[in-house]
Every structure is written in C-alpha cells, then in structure tokens.
C-alpha cells in the first residue's frame, strides 16, 4: 500500500531530474545570483575607479585675465589642481582635442569685475561672458570643469540675490519632511518589485517549458499518462516542483542583488541605505513571493501544456512575460498605495503592488491576505485546467 500521494512522487522525480543535472543547477540557481553579484560589483568597482582616478590626476587650470573677485573662488582646493595665469592661445584650445590632456582653460573678459559692476540686465546688452574650454571625455578635466562651473554659478547668483528659498538658518533645520526610510522606501518600491518578478519569471521560464512541453516532445509524458496516477496529482506535482525550483532561482538572484548592493552603493559618496524593515514586512514579502511563484508556475505550465514542443512553448510564454514585466513597471508611475482592494485580485499585479507597499513601509495585512487567497485560488483553477489538459487527447497527442 502507498503511504503518500503520487504528487509527492512526481515532485521527487522533478527534483531528482533538476538537482541531478549539475549544468542545469548551475545555470538556473547558481549562475543568476553569481552573475548579478559579479556584474553589479564590477560596475561598482569601475565607477569607484573612475571617481578615484579622476581625483588623483593633476589638472592644469589656465586663467586668462584673472579678475580680483575670482582669486579666492578659483584657488586650488587640493594638490590635484594647478593654477596658471597666462593668456590662452588658439593652439592651446585646439590641443584639448587630445583627451589625454588634463587641462581646463578659462578666459575672462578684460576688466571683468568693472564690467560686472556696471552691467544692467535691463540694458538689453549681452552680459559679460566667461569662456571655459575643456574635453568632456577626460574624467579629471570634466570633474574640475563642473566644480568651477558650479562655483561661478553660485557667484553669479550671489550678485543679484533678491531672495533665498529654503535657506537653513539654524543647524538641523529640515524643509523636506520625508524620513530617510521614506526616501529609500520610495526608490526601492519602484525598482525592486519589477526586479523580483523578472527574476522569478526567468527561473520559471528556465525549467517549466522543458518539464512539460519538453516531456510531450520527447514522448515521456505519455509514459506517465498510462500509469494509474490521477491527472490532478500529476498537475499538482508539476506545479509545486516547478514553483519550488523557480523560487530557488529567484532567491539566488535576490541574494546576488543583496550582496552586490553595498558594492554598488560604495561607488557613490556618502550614501547609506537603511533597511529598516520589520519582521512583518519580511513575512508579508515571503508569503507574497511564494504565492506569486505558484501563480507564475501555474500560468507557464498551462502554456507549456498547450505548446507542441519547447520552442513553441517559448514563443507562447514570451508575450505573457512581457505583459508581466510591464505590470512590474507600473509602480514607477504611481504614488502611494492602491486605492481599490480589487487591484489585489489581479494576478501578478497584486504581488507587485504588495511588494511596493512593503518596500515603501506601508504594508497592510488586508491586501496581503487578499493577494494570498486569490493567488491560491488561481493556482487551484490552474491545477484544474492543467488536469483537464492532461486529459485532453487533442492537447496531449496532437501533432
């Protein structure tokens, strides 16, 4: 007598098939996380190198007609900049075409200070013009150019200062009332739901077509269909095993992002991301990811069962994946949480909305529960549909 259902036998067989194939495990579970970690970390290292390289390189700043008022403003802040006061020849400007020359040339009009003092914007005449020549392909020169440009703009603003906006008159005075958590939460809620959905989907895509359409194509599915196992057990076994493997792939990608994020962030100065999420947030996130993986594996399994072979399955699933990815982009264009609870009945989009809520620190249990219940209901419908398809000779044996 059997002491467990055939669903468990199918799940074990799918696991044996997957974990027994080292190449498949590597490409589906290890590689996504590893690649994300390596790519993001290398990007971080590259950006950091660009930053430090630019700071280390010496830039010669040549100033023609240096005005008295600019002496302090243009004084070198550190040893990476040398200031020369001399006329600029046309050949000097032409020489900047060589992007390896770390130089910035600044030409002030003669008697700049008196021109500025006597200039009236109402006169209709052109304002005194400062020419700054540089090569934007040279990182060090670019950095110095932007610093000088910012200083000169600030100087110009101070010349005609009629009023200030948001001037902090006391230490610690804040005008933006958003907390760090809110700011970071807003960014993460716009980016991470789509990334997570994409990762889960690519994990499902990597295995589901082969596990169903592939078995049909290879003739191994019919061998299962002549056993006394119930078709519903087969459908359930396929969906649960595929969901579990897809989840592993998604977790791998998530770990890759989590580990590489500090390397990415370290490339930019003084940014720290507080991950102040509660245990409830994490529980909600995990539950919703699990539920959406079930729906995802169900949908991809249904399409794979309809397909004649793996190639056909890929063709059928791709447009569906694009729709889900578009849904993942929607949080980028909306503010706050969804107004209507009906939104949480829409498969995939409900998970995206809940994830956005969690990352934005506005998780509520009602939408989470609606999402879970509706996703489990959709999975049940999918198991029923898949069972019907496994019973359909037109679908299973059509050529």
């Amino acid at each position, binding site marked *: *007598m*059997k002491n467990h259902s*055939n669903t468990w*036998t199918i799940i074990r*067989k799918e696991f*044996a*098939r997957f974990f*027994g*194939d080292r190449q498949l495990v590597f490409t589906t579970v290890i590689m996504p996380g590893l690649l994300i970690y390596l790519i993001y970390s290398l990007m971080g290292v590259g950006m950091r190198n660009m930053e430090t390289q630019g700071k280390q390189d010496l830039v010669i700043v040549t100033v023609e007609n240096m005005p008295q008022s600019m002496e302090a403003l243009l004084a070198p802040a550190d040893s990476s900049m040398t200031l020369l006061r001399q006329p600029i020849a046309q050949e000097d400007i032409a020489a900047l075409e060589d992007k390896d020359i770390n130089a910035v040339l600044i030409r002030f009009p003669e008697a700049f200070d008196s021109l500025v003092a006597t200039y009236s914007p109402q006169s209709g005449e052109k304002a005194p013009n400062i020419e700054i020549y540089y090569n934007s392909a040279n990182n060090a020169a670019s950095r110095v150019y932007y610093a000088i440009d910012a200083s000169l703009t600030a100087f110009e603003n101070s010349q005609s200062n009629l009023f200030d906006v948001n001037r902090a008159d006391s230490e610690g005075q804040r005008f933006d009332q958003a907390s760090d958590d809110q700011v970071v939460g807003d960014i993460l809620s716009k980016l991470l739901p789509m990334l997570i959905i994409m990762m889960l989907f690519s994990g499902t895509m990597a295995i589901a077509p082969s596990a169903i359409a592939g*078995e049909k194509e*290879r*003739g*191994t599915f*019919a*061998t*299962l*269909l*002549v*056993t*006394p*196992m*119930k078709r519903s057990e087969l459908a359930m076994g396929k969906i649960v095993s595929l969901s579990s493997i897809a989840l592993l792939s998604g977790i791998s990608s998530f770990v890759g992002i989590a580990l590489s994020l500090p390397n990415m962030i370290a490339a930019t100065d003084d940014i720290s991301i507080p991950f102040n999420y509660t245990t409830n947030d994490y529980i909600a996130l995990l539950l919703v990811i699990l539920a959406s993986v079930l729906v995802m594996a169900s949908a991809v399994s249904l399409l794979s069962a309809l397909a004649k072979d793996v190639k056909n399955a890929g063709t059928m699933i791709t447009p569906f994946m694009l729709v889900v990815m578009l849904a993942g982009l929607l949080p980028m264009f909306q503010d706050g949480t969804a107004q209507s609870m009906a939104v949480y009945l829409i498969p995939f989009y409900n998970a995206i909305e809940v994830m956005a809520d969690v990352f934005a620190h506005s998780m509520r249990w009602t939408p989470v529960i609606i999402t879970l219940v509706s996703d489990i209901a959709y999975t049940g419908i999918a198991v029923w549909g898949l069972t019907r398809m496994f019973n359909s*000779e037109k679908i*299973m*044996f059509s050529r």
Partner: protein
Amino acid sequence: MDEILRIEGLSKTFTLSRKQQRLERTHARHKVAVDDLTLTANRGEIFGLLGPNGAGKTTTLRMLATLIKPDKGDAWVDGCSIVSQPEEVRGKIAFLTSELKLEDFFTPNYLYDFFSELHGVAPAVAAQRKQGLFARFGIDKFAEVKVANLSTGMKQKLSIVISLVHNPDIIIFDEPTNGLDVITARTVTDYLQELRGEGKTIILSTHIFSLVERLCDRVGIIIDGHLTSCGSLEEVCDGLTIEDRFFELYKAQKGDEE
C-alpha cells in the same frame, strides 16, 4: 474460457486538420478510425490485431490504454470500464508502444523504482521483481547507466520491463517488433510467449503476418476501422494462409467501398 477483455461497439472519429487533409489527400473533415468494434480476449492468450497502416489498430489500443476516449461504445478490462474507470484500467494493464519513451536522464534503477511507486507496488516486492526482470533482460549490468547511454535494443527491453513493474494481467503491445534488431525482436517475442505461459493476456497489433502465425492464439483482422474477421487462426484462415486470407478480406472490404 475466462474472458478478461470485452470490447463492445467501440468507435472513434477524428477531426482532420487542414494539414492532415492535405496529407491524406481528402476533403473530408472527419475520419472514422474505429467503427463499432466488438471483440473479446481470454485470459492466457495472445490476441493479434492484424491490419494495414491506418486501419485503426493503434487507435483501438490507445482507447484500451485510456489515452484517448471512445466516441461510442465501451470496453471492460478485467471488469473495469475504460470510460468510467480509467485509473483502475491503467492499474491492470501494461501498454507498450514506440511512442512511449523513457527519460534519457535517469538510470534503469531509478525509473523502475519511480514507476513501481506510481503503480503502488510495495518497495520489497518491487525490489525482488526488479532483480528478476533485470536479470531476464540483461539490464542488471546497465542498471546505473543513464538511459541516454543505452543501446536502442536495451532501451526497448527496459521499456518492456518498466511497463511490467506492477505485474499486470493484460499486456497491450503496439507493433512489438517495430524498429528492433532481429536479436532483440526474438527476445521480445520469446518473452511474450513466456508471459502467456504465466497466464497473462497479450493484445498486440501488427501488420506482420509471420508474427501472427507464430504467436497468436486468436486474431482479429481490422481494415478501415472495421473488424472484418475475428476468431482462432484456424477459424479466420479457413484453410488459407493468414496472408492470403487477409488479402481476400482486404479486397472484399475495399470492393464494398468502391
């Protein structure tokens, strides 16, 4: 005689796709594959379904294996209906056809255990039976070799062994020697006779006259979905060879249509 299989009025019509219409050079939207088939098979006999390609042999066997449903009629395998009790029927039969493949990735050992589990065979019984069957077909030496690395003949033998994990009373075999080399084909036909000796019933389809003469106790000749003759070899042949009798019936059937 102890009847183990009863088929009554079994019929199946397929809708042809445009591609199939082109291939079959017909404008008809439907093709009657099996028409009102009625026959019985007894315990401990080899029953042969003889007919040309496209006669409806494979469709009949697939209906018996519950892979496809009949449009009309029913069949009872050891008392279980193929229409209303498909799972019970699948538990009582072995179905073998070249269409059914085993996953290349797994070893014979794994596949045997997996299918034993699906058939609800107790592990101890399965292990004992596996040992006997693997030794009988020479699979024991390749028990841990992936199916992908087995020869075609060994794969076919393994398919037979896997189909028998639950020790079924009825073995349904579609074109048993198709695509096999002579040695493997002989191993298979010898084993079918052995199974008959054990009291099993074998239903096989074929278009090879010599196979019917050598193996079958009873035969049904099926042409264009109709059972044109059925009985013991002597009854069906009526003093002719099976080949001559077949062509006589074939001409009569085609003549009727024309």
